[in-house]
């Protein structure tokens, strides 16, 4: 208990850091992932290839390796001068977007083909079909896997702690180096993560309820 009380301000900073990074990269991944899913079901071949390549690359590379690449390999060729936080945001968003893309795409496949054909037959464009007919129906199916993806993202953000970002897991490193009993430190860190992930699952449960449609 003392460990937490003595270092409450650092703990709070870490906690807020994890929330901030998770929220920001979650939103960006959501946006990127939805666009990529659109690419992957679009009638334009180059866009389809791009989407497939993106997902293949980011879904199959270990996250730590992506961090190492943006920290050590990218600056050798191009030096953007990004801050550590922005680097983490880019890596986490790209990585998570590939999972979001696949979840959204699977949602799209659950909408019966007749829906798309009907939309096309009354003269809707591809974007109208996707935005007005398909996606609204796909959202319901996509919510449960998305919830898992964002919970995974929360925990994945811990890796950013090893790359100069202030977040919850880094607090543990700070204190174990000073020789505090490790079990307590881990307990508080775990509880911190639990609060965030639990909030995410509650949010999605509420969303599921509100979007429920009698089939």
């Amino acid at each position: 208990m003392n460990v937490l009380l003595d270092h409450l301000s650092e703990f709070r900073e870490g906690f807020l850091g994890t929330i901030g990074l998770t929220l920001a990269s979650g939103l960006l991944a959501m946006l990127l992932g939805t666009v990529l899913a659109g690419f992957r079901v679009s009638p334009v071949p180059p866009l389809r290839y791009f989407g497939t390549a993106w997902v293949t690359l980011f879904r199959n590379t270990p996250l730590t390796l992506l961090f190492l690449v943006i920290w050590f390999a990218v600056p050798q060729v191009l030096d953007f001068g990004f801050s550590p936080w922005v680097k983490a945001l880019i890596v986490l968003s790209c990585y998570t977007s590939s999972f979001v893309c696949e979840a959204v795409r699977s949602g799209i496949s659950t909408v019966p083909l007749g829906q798309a054909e009907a939309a096309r037959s009354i003269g809707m464009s591809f974007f109208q079909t996707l935005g007005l007919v398909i996606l609204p129906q796909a959202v319901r199916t996509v919510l449960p896997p998305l919830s898992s993806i964002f919970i995974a993202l929360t925990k994945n953000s811990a890796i950013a702690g090893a790359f100069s970002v202030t977040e919850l897991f880094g607090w543990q490193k700070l204190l174990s180096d000073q020789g505090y009993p490790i079990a307590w430190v881990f307990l508080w860190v775990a509880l911190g993560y639990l609060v965030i992930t639990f909030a995410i699952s509650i949010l999605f449960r509420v969303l599921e309820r509100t979007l429920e449609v009698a089939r």
Partner: protein
Amino acid sequence: MKLRKSAAAAAAVAALALTATACGGESGNAGDKPAGASGGKNQPKLPTYAVKSDVKVDSATLEKAQKAGKIVIGSKDDQPYLGFQDSGGKRSGFDIEIAKMVAADLGFKADQITFKTIDSGVRETTISKGDVDLYVGTYTINDERKKQVGFAGPYLMAGADLLIRSDEKGITGPTSLKGKKVCSIKGSTPLQEIKKPKYGAETVELAKYSECVQQLLNNEVDAVTTDDAILKGYAAQNPKKLKVVGKPFTKEPYGVGMAKNDKALRDAVADAIEAHQKNGDYKKAYDATLGLSGSDYVEPPALERY
């Protein structure tokens, strides 16, 4: 955004491979294979330690080790010239030498030592559980730790310092870091110091010192901070490109960790350190390891017995 000299993807991947394996090329094999150290000079040789026989110490830990015929010593494996393990599994460095000279005085030959790599975060737990008999690995003696483990020492007075590129003119100590980028390990004590607003430095925190050193060599950061002993090891590995400023701004007395209430063993280890400091082994060991960095030898601190 500026376009660098096109270091092709291959170079980038090579750099990545280096950082990923946390080993800057030459392994820290001090003594017989100079790792690009001060060219042409006779490399200082590592001393050999006379092993005592019939050692009697009233310590349960030691008696158990004597029965088993081997002593288990915890150490680090990723600090060149200090506590390093090369890809062949051979360990080298100043802390390893300290472990060997202490073990010799306790009656164990070098081949009767089992080294175990123990991460900083779990040192106290490992020692109090009895998984290691002794621990030698940049272990700063402090009161919080004394509640959980016993210390013999200090055998080396380290202190937070700065590692810079050899051609760096602007950094002469912690007070000249305004607007500079300083790298260190997540949660390390020197970084907490440098973070204070009075220094005005920008900090970068990574998981390994080798990553920080890589960033320094890539001109991504201007300095690396941690205990000078660790920095000297990296400077010894790369004496042409790197140097230690030599103005320590904290005190980090390194001790040998062991079970908390084993006074007999504490005294025996302290005696061993003292004996080897007196007979010159200590200095020889330093010259053949951390001394290769070009930093001067400093007389060891007085031992504190309690």
